[in-house]
Protein backbone atom coordinates (compact mmCIF):
# COMPACT_ATOMS: atom_id res chain seq x y z
CA UNK A 1 0.00 0.00 0.00
CA UNK A 2 1.30 3.27 -1.02
CA UNK A 3 1.69 5.73 1.68
CA UNK A 4 -0.28 8.80 1.06
CA UNK A 5 2.46 11.29 1.89
CA UNK A 6 1.66 15.01 1.56
CA UNK A 7 3.15 16.81 -1.44
CA UNK A 8 6.23 18.93 -0.91
CA UNK A 9 5.73 22.62 -1.50
CA UNK A 10 7.80 22.55 -4.73
CA UNK A 11 5.93 19.62 -6.00
CA UNK A 12 2.58 21.34 -5.88
CA UNK A 13 1.07 21.52 -9.43
CA UNK A 14 0.08 25.12 -9.10
CA UNK A 15 3.54 26.05 -8.02
CA UNK A 16 4.97 24.17 -11.00
CA UNK A 17 2.66 26.00 -13.40
CA UNK A 18 3.65 29.31 -11.94
CA UNK A 19 7.33 28.40 -12.28
CA UNK A 20 6.78 27.33 -15.90
CA UNK A 21 4.99 30.57 -16.78
CA UNK A 22 7.66 32.59 -15.03
CA UNK A 23 10.42 30.84 -16.98
CA UNK A 24 8.62 31.34 -20.28
CA UNK A 25 8.00 34.99 -19.41
CA UNK A 26 11.67 35.49 -18.59
CA UNK A 27 12.74 33.80 -21.82
CA UNK A 28 10.31 35.89 -23.85
CA UNK A 29 11.47 39.04 -22.11
CA UNK A 30 15.09 38.20 -22.80
CA UNK A 31 14.29 37.40 -26.42
CA UNK A 32 12.39 40.67 -26.81
CA UNK A 33 15.15 42.66 -25.20
CA UNK A 34 17.74 41.06 -27.47
CA UNK A 35 15.61 41.60 -30.56
CA UNK A 36 15.04 45.25 -29.75
CA UNK A 37 18.68 45.83 -28.95
CA UNK A 38 19.86 44.11 -32.11
CA UNK A 39 17.38 46.00 -34.30
CA UNK A 40 18.39 49.25 -32.71
CA UNK A 41 22.02 48.52 -33.47
CA UNK A 42 21.20 47.69 -37.06
CA UNK A 43 19.13 50.84 -37.40
CA UNK A 44 21.87 52.90 -35.83
CA UNK A 45 24.42 51.44 -38.20
CA UNK A 46 22.14 51.98 -41.17
CA UNK A 47 21.39 55.50 -40.06
CA UNK A 48 25.07 56.19 -39.58
CA UNK A 49 25.78 54.86 -43.06
CA UNK A 50 23.03 56.96 -44.60
CA UNK A 51 24.14 60.02 -42.68
CA UNK A 52 27.70 59.46 -43.73
CA UNK A 53 26.70 59.04 -47.36
CA UNK A 54 24.45 62.09 -47.19
CA UNK A 55 27.19 64.12 -45.60
CA UNK A 56 29.63 63.02 -48.27
CA UNK A 57 27.15 63.82 -51.01
CA UNK A 58 26.34 67.15 -49.47
CA UNK A 59 29.99 67.97 -49.16
CA UNK A 60 30.67 66.84 -52.70
CA UNK A 61 27.73 68.86 -54.00
CA UNK A 62 28.95 71.98 -52.30
CA UNK A 63 32.40 71.55 -53.72
CA UNK A 64 31.04 71.01 -57.22
CA UNK A 65 28.89 74.11 -57.01
CA UNK A 66 31.83 76.20 -55.92
CA UNK A 67 34.02 74.84 -58.69
CA UNK A 68 31.31 75.43 -61.29
CA UNK A 69 30.77 79.00 -60.21
CA UNK A 70 34.49 79.64 -60.50
CA UNK A 71 34.63 78.09 -63.96
CA UNK A 72 31.57 79.99 -65.12
CA UNK A 73 32.88 83.33 -63.92
CA UNK A 74 36.27 82.66 -65.51
CA UNK A 75 34.61 81.75 -68.79
CA UNK A 76 32.31 84.75 -68.50
CA UNK A 77 35.28 87.06 -68.14
CA UNK A 78 36.96 85.42 -71.10
CA UNK A 79 33.82 85.81 -73.22
CA UNK A 80 33.60 89.49 -72.28
CA UNK A 81 37.24 89.97 -73.22
CA UNK A 82 36.77 88.30 -76.61
CA UNK A 83 33.62 90.29 -77.36
CA UNK A 84 35.44 93.48 -76.49
CA UNK A 85 38.38 92.55 -78.75
CA UNK A 86 36.05 91.73 -81.65
CA UNK A 87 34.17 94.99 -81.11
CA UNK A 88 37.43 96.90 -81.38
CA UNK A 89 38.40 95.01 -84.49
CA UNK A 90 35.01 95.67 -86.10
CA UNK A 91 35.24 99.36 -85.24
CA UNK A 92 38.72 99.61 -86.75
CA UNK A 93 37.09 99.78 -90.20
CA UNK A 94 34.20 101.92 -91.36
CA UNK A 95 31.49 101.32 -93.93
CA UNK A 96 31.95 104.96 -94.89
CA UNK A 97 34.97 103.81 -96.91
CA UNK A 98 32.40 102.73 -99.51
CA UNK A 99 29.87 105.55 -99.31
CA UNK A 100 28.51 107.26 -102.43
CA UNK A 101 30.62 110.37 -102.07
CA UNK A 102 33.80 108.35 -102.61
CA UNK A 103 32.94 108.10 -106.28
CA UNK A 104 30.86 111.19 -107.00
CA UNK A 105 31.76 113.77 -109.66
CA UNK A 106 33.71 115.88 -107.20
CA UNK A 107 35.83 112.95 -106.09
CA UNK A 108 36.61 112.11 -109.70
CA UNK A 109 37.23 115.74 -110.70
CA UNK A 110 34.46 115.74 -113.30
Amino acid sequence: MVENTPLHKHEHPLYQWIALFASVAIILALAGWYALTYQSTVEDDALATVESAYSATLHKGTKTTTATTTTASTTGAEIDAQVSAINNETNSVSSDDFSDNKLDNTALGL
Partner: protein
Amino acid sequence: MKKALIILGTTGLLVASVAAAKVDTSALKVQRAANAQVKCDFIETNVARKVTKFETNRNKHVTSYIKTKERVAALVTKLEAKGYDVTKLKADLTEYDAKIKKFSDDHVAYVAALTSTQEFACGKSEGEFKSQLAAARAVLKTVHDDSVAIRTYWAETVKPDILALKAQKITEKTKTVGGTE
Protein backbone atom coordinates in the same frame (compact mmCIF):
# COMPACT_ATOMS: atom_id res chain seq x y z
CA MET B 1 42.65 154.27 -160.41
CA LYS B 2 41.74 155.53 -157.01
CA LYS B 3 38.62 153.37 -157.08
CA ALA B 4 40.63 150.33 -157.98
CA LEU B 5 42.97 150.92 -155.08
CA ILE B 6 40.06 151.19 -152.65
CA ILE B 7 38.55 147.93 -153.88
CA LEU B 8 41.87 146.20 -153.70
CA GLY B 9 42.48 147.46 -150.18
CA THR B 10 39.08 146.38 -148.98
CA THR B 11 39.46 142.97 -150.55
CA GLY B 12 42.85 142.64 -148.94
CA LEU B 13 41.42 143.46 -145.55
CA LEU B 14 38.67 140.92 -146.00
CA VAL B 15 41.08 138.19 -147.00
CA ALA B 16 43.32 139.05 -144.06
CA SER B 17 40.35 138.94 -141.67
CA VAL B 18 39.18 135.56 -142.96
CA ALA B 19 42.72 134.21 -142.70
CA ALA B 20 43.06 135.50 -139.18
CA ALA B 21 39.71 133.99 -138.26
CA LYS B 22 40.82 130.63 -139.66
CA VAL B 23 44.02 130.76 -137.66
CA ASP B 24 41.97 131.58 -134.55
CA THR B 25 39.62 128.65 -135.14
CA SER B 26 42.47 126.22 -135.60
CA ALA B 27 44.17 127.46 -132.48
CA LEU B 28 40.93 127.06 -130.57
CA LYS B 29 40.58 123.51 -131.80
CA VAL B 30 44.10 122.72 -130.73
CA GLN B 31 43.47 124.33 -127.38
CA ARG B 32 40.25 122.40 -126.94
CA ALA B 33 41.94 119.15 -127.81
CA ALA B 34 44.70 119.91 -125.37
CA ASN B 35 42.18 120.71 -122.66
CA ALA B 36 40.29 117.50 -123.35
CA GLN B 37 43.48 115.53 -123.09
CA VAL B 38 44.35 117.19 -119.81
CA LYS B 39 40.88 116.45 -118.50
CA CYS B 40 40.90 112.82 -119.55
CA ASP B 41 44.38 112.35 -118.14
CA PHE B 42 43.13 113.89 -114.93
CA ILE B 43 40.12 111.57 -114.83
CA GLU B 44 42.24 108.55 -115.64
CA THR B 45 44.64 109.47 -112.87
CA ASN B 46 41.80 109.97 -110.44
CA VAL B 47 40.14 106.69 -111.37
CA ALA B 48 43.47 104.88 -111.04
CA ARG B 49 43.97 106.49 -107.63
CA LYS B 50 40.46 105.45 -106.63
CA VAL B 51 41.08 101.88 -107.73
CA THR B 52 44.24 101.74 -105.62
CA LYS B 53 42.47 103.31 -102.66
CA PHE B 54 39.52 100.94 -102.88
CA GLU B 55 41.85 97.94 -103.21
CA THR B 56 43.61 99.05 -100.03
CA ASN B 57 40.30 99.52 -98.24
CA ARG B 58 39.11 96.14 -99.41
CA ASN B 59 42.19 94.43 -98.00
CA LYS B 60 41.86 96.35 -94.76
CA HIS B 61 38.19 95.42 -94.36
CA VAL B 62 38.57 91.78 -95.37
CA THR B 63 41.56 91.37 -93.03
CA SER B 64 39.58 92.86 -90.18
CA TYR B 65 36.49 90.74 -90.88
CA ILE B 66 38.57 87.56 -91.10
CA LYS B 67 40.25 88.38 -87.79
CA THR B 68 36.88 88.75 -86.09
CA LYS B 69 35.66 85.52 -87.68
CA GLU B 70 38.74 83.65 -86.46
CA ARG B 71 38.30 85.01 -82.95
CA VAL B 72 34.70 83.82 -82.88
CA ALA B 73 35.73 80.42 -84.30
CA ALA B 74 38.43 80.02 -81.61
CA LEU B 75 35.91 80.94 -78.93
CA VAL B 76 33.43 78.40 -80.30
CA THR B 77 36.07 75.65 -80.14
CA LYS B 78 37.07 76.56 -76.59
CA LEU B 79 33.52 76.81 -75.27
CA GLU B 80 32.47 73.60 -76.97
CA ALA B 81 35.35 71.80 -75.24
CA LYS B 82 34.02 73.11 -71.93
CA GLY B 83 30.61 71.64 -72.60
CA TYR B 84 28.69 74.65 -73.87
CA ASP B 85 26.02 74.19 -76.51
CA VAL B 86 27.44 76.27 -79.37
CA THR B 87 25.11 75.06 -82.12
CA LYS B 88 23.58 78.50 -82.64
CA LEU B 89 26.95 80.21 -82.64
CA LYS B 90 28.27 77.78 -85.24
CA ALA B 91 25.33 78.60 -87.50
CA ASP B 92 25.99 82.30 -86.93
CA LEU B 93 29.61 81.81 -87.91
CA THR B 94 28.65 80.15 -91.19
CA GLU B 95 26.33 83.07 -92.01
CA TYR B 96 28.98 85.58 -90.97
CA ASP B 97 31.54 83.90 -93.21
CA ALA B 98 29.11 83.99 -96.16
CA LYS B 99 28.59 87.73 -95.66
CA ILE B 100 32.35 88.35 -95.65
CA LYS B 101 32.71 86.34 -98.85
CA LYS B 102 29.88 88.31 -100.50
CA PHE B 103 31.54 91.58 -99.53
CA SER B 104 34.85 90.39 -100.97
CA ASP B 105 33.30 89.17 -104.24
CA ASP B 106 31.20 92.30 -104.71
CA HIS B 107 34.24 94.42 -104.09
CA VAL B 108 36.19 92.59 -106.79
CA ALA B 109 33.28 93.24 -109.18
CA TYR B 110 33.23 96.89 -108.17
CA VAL B 111 36.93 97.43 -108.80
CA ALA B 112 36.57 95.71 -112.18
CA ALA B 113 33.68 98.03 -113.09
CA LEU B 114 35.61 101.09 -111.95
CA THR B 115 38.71 100.03 -113.84
CA SER B 116 36.75 99.60 -117.03
CA THR B 117 35.66 103.26 -116.93
CA GLN B 118 39.29 104.17 -117.65
CA GLU B 119 39.12 102.87 -121.18
CA PHE B 120 36.18 105.18 -121.88
CA ALA B 121 37.65 108.23 -120.19
CA CYS B 122 39.82 109.17 -123.19
CA GLY B 123 39.18 108.86 -126.88
CA LYS B 124 35.69 107.35 -126.62
CA SER B 125 32.22 108.68 -126.16
CA GLU B 126 31.36 110.55 -123.02
CA GLY B 127 28.09 108.63 -122.91
CA GLU B 128 29.87 105.30 -122.58
CA PHE B 129 32.08 106.65 -119.83
CA LYS B 130 29.09 107.95 -117.88
CA SER B 131 27.20 104.70 -118.36
CA GLN B 132 30.13 102.64 -117.11
CA LEU B 133 30.65 105.00 -114.17
CA ALA B 134 26.99 104.67 -113.21
CA ALA B 135 27.37 100.87 -113.23
CA ALA B 136 30.44 101.13 -110.99
CA ARG B 137 28.56 103.39 -108.60
CA ALA B 138 25.72 100.86 -108.37
CA VAL B 139 28.17 98.10 -107.42
CA LEU B 140 29.81 100.45 -104.89
CA LYS B 141 26.43 100.82 -103.19
CA THR B 142 26.19 97.01 -102.97
CA VAL B 143 29.67 96.87 -101.42
CA HIS B 144 28.68 99.53 -98.90
CA ASP B 145 25.52 97.58 -98.02
CA ASP B 146 27.59 94.40 -97.63
CA SER B 147 29.89 96.17 -95.20
CA VAL B 148 26.96 97.48 -93.16
CA ALA B 149 25.37 94.01 -93.19
CA ILE B 150 28.51 92.46 -91.71
CA ARG B 151 28.70 95.05 -88.93
CA THR B 152 24.99 94.71 -88.19
CA TYR B 153 25.15 90.92 -88.13
CA TRP B 154 27.99 91.02 -85.65
CA ALA B 155 26.29 93.57 -83.39
CA GLU B 156 22.75 92.18 -83.51
CA THR B 157 23.24 88.42 -83.88
CA VAL B 158 26.71 87.02 -83.20
CA LYS B 159 27.53 89.20 -80.20
CA PRO B 160 24.24 88.60 -78.34
CA ASP B 161 24.54 84.85 -78.99
CA ILE B 162 28.05 84.80 -77.54
CA LEU B 163 27.00 86.77 -74.46
CA ALA B 164 24.00 84.46 -73.95
CA LEU B 165 26.39 81.54 -73.45
CA LYS B 166 27.47 82.97 -70.10
CA ALA B 167 24.02 82.33 -68.64
CA GLN B 168 23.73 78.94 -70.34
CA LYS B 169 26.66 77.38 -68.43
CA ILE B 170 25.52 78.51 -64.98
CA THR B 171 21.95 77.29 -65.50
CA GLU B 172 23.01 73.84 -66.70
CA LYS B 173 25.47 73.22 -63.87
CA THR B 174 23.02 74.35 -61.20
CA LYS B 175 20.55 71.84 -62.49
CA THR B 176 23.15 69.03 -62.41
CA VAL B 177 24.30 69.77 -58.87
CA GLY B 178 20.78 69.86 -57.45
CA GLY B 179 19.45 66.92 -59.43
CA THR B 180 21.86 64.04 -59.47
CA GLU B 181 24.60 64.41 -56.90
